[in-house]
């Protein structure tokens, strides 16, 4: 933690020295603004993985969520209804996934990749079929809040006190998910079927039911995360709008060692590098944009040997379970 603080301060100091206060403020603001999509997907998938089901198709769910939120917001004019519709739709897709992964006990990698390709293709197909004739369709977005007084503070004002509500909600969900997994009856059951389903069943836990629930919660979260792109960041839908962030979410769970609080640090690092490179592309520095594009992904890969040490996955992750067998 101390090391993280030192890295953060040094990083901020370097950016400040090179590009000045305004740039630093903009980068910090953007860093936090980019957090919710990843964080929501991450927390949801973490719950699913805790139950022993790896959903590689998070990205596909996010894409479908992004599209549904966009389409429904376009029709109703209310982004909140859009987000809820997105979550409802991804839960249905999650149900299909859970049926294959849990009831049919199929290879989770195969259907995970299948779900990703399905979402990637269908979201764009539907968008082109219904929305791209003529001008680009746009929707009202969920805007930033301006917390009185605090939002005028230097450095942290815009960064922390001038974000959209989803930012605060998603961060508040970290302790909620942690509490859910560790302190509630259902959460403990989820962890039990992810560690030792046989023992859990002996104790009278319905392994299939618990895994279905965990996958569906994960799907709802992924839908909300995807919806964030269209209803908050962009206000429109484009091909591959979530830009592989669903896969980043999978990597972040690994870095976070399957603990909700631990996910935040690698997530902020990724988000900071991502917003920094976006900022630098606009700042016109003599580094080509394709190098800057690579930066967030290379950062993630480079972090594996540092943050990935000692990561232990739930013991039954990716292990299909046969009832009573």
């Amino acid at each position: 933690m101390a090391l993280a603080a030192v890295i953060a301060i040094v990083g901020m100091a370097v950016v400040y020295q090179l590009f000045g206060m305004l740039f630093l403020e903009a980068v910090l603001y953007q860093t936090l603004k980019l957090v919710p999509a990843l964080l929501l997907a991450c927390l949801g998938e973490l719950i699913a993985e805790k139950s022993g089901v790896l959903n590689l198709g998070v990205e596909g769910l996010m894409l479908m969520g992004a599209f549904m939120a966009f389409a429904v917001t376009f029709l109703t004019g209310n982004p909140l209804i859009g987000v809820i519709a997105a979550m409802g739709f991804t839960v249905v897709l999650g149900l299909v996934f859970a049926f294959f992964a849990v009831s049919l006990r199929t290879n989770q990698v195969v259907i995970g990749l299948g779900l990703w390709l399905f979402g990637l293709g269908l979201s764009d197909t539907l968008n082109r079929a219904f929305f791209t004739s003529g001008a680009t369709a746009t929707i009202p977005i969920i805007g930033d809040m301006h917390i009185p007084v605090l939002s005028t503070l230097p450095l942290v004002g815009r960064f922390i006190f001038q974000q959209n509500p989803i930012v605060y909600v998603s961060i508040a969900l970290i302790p909620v998910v942690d509490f859910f997994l560790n302190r509630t009856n259902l959460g403990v059951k989820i962890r039990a079927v992810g560690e030792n389903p046989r023992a859990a069943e002996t104790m009278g836990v319905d392994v299939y039911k618990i895994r279905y629930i965990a996958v569906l919660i994960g799907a709802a979260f992924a839908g909300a995360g995807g919806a964030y792109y269209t209803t908050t960041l962009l206000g429109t839908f484009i091909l591959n709008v979530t830009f592989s962030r669903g896969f980043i979410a999978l990597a972040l769970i690994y870095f976070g060692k399957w603990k909700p609080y631990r996910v935040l640090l690698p997530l902020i690092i990724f988000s900071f590098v991502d917003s920094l490179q976006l900022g630098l592309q606009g700042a016109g520095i003599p580094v080509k944009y394709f190098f800057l594009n690579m930066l967030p992904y290379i950062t993630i890969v480079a972090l594996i040997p540092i943050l990935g040490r000692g990561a232990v996955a739930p013991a039954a992750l990716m292990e299909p379970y046969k009832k009573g067998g």
Partner: protein
Amino acid sequence: MQTVARLRGVGYNALALAVGIVSGLTLVAAIGGDLRAASISLLLSPISSVYSFSEIFVRVTVLLIMGLGIALGMRAGVWNVGAEGQFIVGSVMAMYVAFHVNSIPAPILVVLMMLAGAAGGLLWMVVPALLKARFGANEIVVTLLLNLVASNFLLYALDGPIRGKASFGYLISDMLPPDLRIPKLIPATRLGFGIVIAVGLVLVFYLLSERTSFGLQVRTVGRNQEAARYAGISIPRVYMVTLLLAGAMAGLAGAIHVSGVIFTLDPGYPSGYGYIAIVVAMLGGTSVIGTAVASLVISYFVVGAEAMQSAAQVPFALVYTIEGIILFSLAAGQYLMGRRKS
């Protein structure tokens, strides 16, 4: 008995494929595409002319070479989802050698280009393979992230090392000179000797997996890690070798594609073949012969799907959706097959 089981497997896979195609056509109709034109072009256009027919084998060349590597990895239990990126890097490396290595007779240079492509794909896999073997990092996620890096690497290469002399500020390489292209097998088509290399590799992979101790090690690790450890097999080593080999194959496929079919690189080069190759390996049941047959079947539908896309005016992304559905139905087929067995 085994033949019956194998035939049943083929039956289930064929059924899965049919489900995927029917769902795809349903989607075409649902979004208002011309269903009649879509069905005809999807199913019949690949056999409507010599050119279209040869196009099937143009796709087989690429998908088979990549699929062989991916299937071998799958058998050990590791997944190369990064074939798309390795394919790009392999293509760039081949072009780099073509434009920067001088005073070597053309035929030898072409061989060098192929080797450079394979080396590029292999190098692109070094990091994911090491992270998998050393830290247990999920190779699926890492190889996928490197695909995103690879498409930017292509932009970098087009901006500098392989930038065309007459590109006028566009990101495009020069055309490969005719003597550095892989010779054509059938004139007036795009089918070249790459297909011969692909068929040769089928033989190599067959011998590797069926007739060597390494092939046995791969299967043991994939089936039962406990038994593998007991038998003294180094699991990380098997992971490393299969992943690196898969990377080299994808890189080689890229080199063959660019020097046999495309002849130039631009930012639109990434093709999605790297992901389709996963479906090929899966459909083929990860066996060498199965992969070969599957590459033929999938290539048929890839050519058909491209014709369908323009005939029925549906977005290209629909092809991804169909791929996704096929993966789900293949998985369901394997469930049904498993239930028969027990």
